């Protein structure tokens, strides 16, 4: 029997995806397309935020949506119902999308005809945050009924986000959600992240989100520079 030996490896298991994601981001930038990755729990309001964003920005930007779902087209159908092109990634049980999957979806779109791609990630707060999709902007969406302890329970999500949108402010009276506590926790994890309360249903706070997004999509701030 041969002797055991220790082999030093020091290899990140996420490295391969990071390389692919960086290449994808570069390709999008070269085509002057901004991609926004929207992550949340199931029912947090990802599709509602996407529909709101389309409503506000469709006159300014040419938008397409990439929808990731384990095995349904419900969300993609809502997007196409308002006249926007959607590519559906059926992840077949996979709980997040990675750069390879997004690349496959983008092959279905003509990047030259687009300014903005909204990527609706699979609904979960765990591994979606750990896999770079190639997006320029990462949005973490948290809704009041989920509770204000989410940044404590899922720190990686809130550390990876460029902006945290707190949705369903119209539930404030019944949700017992401490927005200041959430701001404080996010500031510890990720001081650069914006925290923006909105209600996709009433439209409260949506203007601030649109303004924030516009700055990141429009040149010279956006991917064209």
């Amino acid at each position, binding site marked *: 029997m041969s002797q055991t030996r220790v082999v030093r*490896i020091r290899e990140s298991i996420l490295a391969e995806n990071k390389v692919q994601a960086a290449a994808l981001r570069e390709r999008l930038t070269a085509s002057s397309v901004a991609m926004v990755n929207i992550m949340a729990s199931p029912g947090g309001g990802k599709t*509602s935020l996407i*529909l709101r964003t389309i409503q506000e920005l469709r006159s300014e930007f040419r938008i397409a949506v990439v929808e990731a779902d*384990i095995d349904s087209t419900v969300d993609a159908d809502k997007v196409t119902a308002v006249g926007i092109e959607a590519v559906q990634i*059926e992840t077949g*049980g996979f709980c997040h999308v990675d750069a390879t999957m997004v690349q*496959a979806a983008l092959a279905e779109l003509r990047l030259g005809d687009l300014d903005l791609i909204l990527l609706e990630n699979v609904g979960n707060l765990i591994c979606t945050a750990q896999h770079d999709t190639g997006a320029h902007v990462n949005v973490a969406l948290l809704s009041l009924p989920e509770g204000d302890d989410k940044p404590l329970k899922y*720190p990686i999500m809130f550390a990876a986000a460029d902006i945290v949108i707190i949705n369903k402010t119209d539930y404030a009276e019944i949700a017992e959600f401490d927005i200041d506590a959430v701001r404080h926790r996010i500031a*510890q994890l*990720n001081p650069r992240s914006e925290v923006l309360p909105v209600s996709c249903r009433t439209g409260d706070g949506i203007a601030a989100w649109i303004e924030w997004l516009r700055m990141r999509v429009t040149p010279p701030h956006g991917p064209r520079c």
Partner: protein
Amino acid sequence: MPLVCGTKTVPQIGEEWNVVRATIRRPSPSPPVDVPGTDGYANGREARTEGMVHELSITNDILRVVVKHARREKADRVHRVALVVSELSDLQPIWIQRYFDRISEGTVAHGARLEIEHQAPEFLCNRSGCGVRFSVSLRTVDRVVCPQCGGGDCTMQEAADYVVEEIEVS
């Protein structure tokens, strides 16, 4: 077809996991004017079984890296895998080990013991002229401040990573 939860189909090593079916959906010819409905307001609680899926996808990546290096070393068996994982990772080591035992069947890594060490995240101080990198455990501090200049504008460099540090083979 990759597995959905711990009891279903188990992927084979080398099998392509990222099964992607991208389907394009064109808008209907005359789009109705629509505003977000109440659909996004469904109950946001996650399914209980979902927690297992996340460990599984990470475990598959760990196995891929381990087998690649074991092959390179022409090893017959992997006895131990040392991993360094961010302390922010919410994945459960017990599930990572169980999934590893299962999906490594038939590979040189089957039976290997996983040693998981948690590491404090690294931050970069954004104050111009400082730019110090430092590690601090978020379990021990209430607020992240730069140990060099005392500045509070610090960015986490890597929220979550899983690094295969070393393997013990024979």
